[in-house]
């Protein structure tokens, strides 16, 4: 029995540590995807400004409250606007941003294929 007790406690502690490490990983990941609003082109993670420090604290608290990564992004988006997110949301405003490069890629492929077909037909 005693052995099981120790094992249980140990596994809880270990698990807790593991979870904590995961939390820090997520915290950093989120902070890296946010723009420090008062800095010149720095992420929240990279900055040491007061804004960035308070935001890092906020992220930490939100994670402890049990919010998921996506929830935190949308929370910050409503609070500070889309400007804070480094990963632009896919919506009416950004269709072109996301799709134009892919369309260009497809168009490029089409041009190359046409080039081959044309040349070979001529012969």
């Amino acid at each position: 029995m005693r052995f099981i007790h120790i094992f249980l406690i140990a596994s809880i502690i270990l698990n807790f540590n593991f979870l904590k490490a995961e939390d820090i990983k997520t915290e950093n990941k989120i902070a890296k995807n946010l723009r420090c609003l008062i800095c010149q082109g720095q992420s929240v993670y990279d900055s040491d400004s007061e804004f960035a420090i308070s935001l890092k604290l906020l992220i930490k608290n939100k994670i402890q409250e049990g919010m998921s990564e996506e929830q935190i992004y949308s929370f910050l988006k409503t609070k500070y606007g889309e400007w804070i997110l480094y990963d632009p949301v896919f919506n009416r405003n950004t269709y072109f941003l996301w799709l134009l490069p892919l369309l260009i890629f497809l168009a490029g492929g089409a041009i190359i294929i046409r080039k081959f077909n044309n040349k070979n037909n001529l012969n």
Partner: protein
Amino acid sequence: MASFIGFYSLSFGLFFSIFIILYSFINLKNSEVLDKKIVSFTFIQFFFVLISFLGLIISFVNSDFSNETVFNHSHTTKPLFYKISGTWGNHEGSLLLWLLVLTLFISIFLIRSNQQPTKYRIFTLLFQQIIIIGFFIFLIKTSSPFNYIFPKPNEGLGLNPILQDPALAIHPPILYLGYVGSSIIFSSALGAMVTSHVTKEWAKHIKRWVLISWVFLTLGILLGSIWAYYELGWGGFWFWDPVENVSLMPWFALTTLLHCILVLEKKKILTSWAMILSIATFALSMSGTFLVRSGILNSVHTFANDPERGLFILIFLFTLIFLSIFIFIFFHSEKEKIENNFFWLSKESSILVNNWFMMYFLSVVLIGTIYPIFLEVITANKISVGPPFYNKLIIPFLIPFLLAMAIGPKLNWIKSDFKDKFYMIIFLMISFLLSALIIKEFDISFLINTILVTSAFFLFFSTLREFFIKRLKNLSQNIAHFGFSLLILSVLFNNIFSNEIITNLKIGETFRSDKFTINFENIDQEDEKNFKAIIGKFNVLHTDGSSDTLNPELRIYNQPNIITSEADIKTNLLTDKFMTMNYVQNQEYFNIRYQVKPFMIWIWISVILISFGGLLSFFKKRYEI
């Protein structure tokens, strides 16, 4: 006095443009040989700009604060080296440097192009003169480096301390050599179109300019990246910052052109495409200058902005683009012969694939950089486009790109069969096993990471084998491609295996994690000429038993009064250990960042290898492909 000479020398330089243009037109009428006078005038113009530039350097060295530029960007206590580099560390001076390189390059062009038709040389000179005159007027009208202040101030305002750095001192000149090199390609493409000289000979001759601009551009970007790594204190080397993107775009265009020219020097095909690329490369270099100088971009690098200047560059840029479109439409005719058959499996098609992907990468960076600006103007919505965007759109496309890069150079011109099938399959298997072994951690990103590393390893092994079987043949291309595989591998490993922490520590405190223990021992103070340094002493003990002493610094500069933090980096072949210490206002503790970054030095080495490949090709007398 030096400013005075500098100013008048600049005006004389502009004056000589009139002579050059006049004599060029006379020469065009009887264009058997190039008039020696034109060459002399071009040299004299370069000489005057050089005098002007030296005048500015002397003003900086003597701390002549009656000169407004010197007053705004220098200080008596600054070390001599940074007084000199301060000459181009500001808007006015950097433009003067642009102009200096412009006039230097056209002089070199005139000497080195004597194998080419005279008419083509004169037209190239004329187009280059349009750019040169534009820069002269821009410099004299909106951003003269020789404005006079009276009464003379006793002390200057000083140079931004983060710019006081050896890598950054040579970063602008090297980058400008690349940018301005693209102006020669631009003028020469226009000249070649007007005189119907878009031929194999033209391709052979302009290839050297493409190569040299490409080498300088690559090295310039590298220096900027190294600087950002150790000076900005975030431990990264590429931030997808708009100003970085702006230097990357001409690089993509130039790399595409470099590959396209390889086809053109063999066969007269893809001429229109080569022309478009030549124009695009220069347009991108110019718009880069415009975007950086106008202050539109929100970036760490924005250190000079003024709407009037931005407007001038914008108008100038549009004039040049319209001119080139006009010439392209009315003068360029694509007389490609039908004999030039394309076959799927050939070197031409693999180069087209390269062009295709390069253009895609370029479009991602271009759209990502300028889309937010347009969106804000049109809808007043502010959005950010950062690293996640670029990663999502670029990384998946790297996989086929790397594979094509490994296979392409093995193919022959016109038509080819797959050779070495056996080796390729073996290499692919080895690469896959190796990657799966290295990326043991099994999570969502496992699949993409493994495939990415596999394709990078595949390119690595394929190019490595080429060294042994082909030896000196194709060496330059092979070195560059090998360097690229090394670059991708190091960047990937660096990303996947880096280990970093941020913590607050007081003197005497210790931070423990499962990988290392950081002990903040004490701090020292030192007084330098233009700053005070607070040096932290840290002892880091790793779980494998190794220990390091790291001494990151805080510098408090006197003029301007700015605190910067200097990273301490312990570099060896396998990992970089990177530590910065930041000051937190009204607190006893310091903010400490510690990062263990594997293969950091290989990122720099691989970029040097890539440019070395280009340099080797430049010095090669005859091209054997």
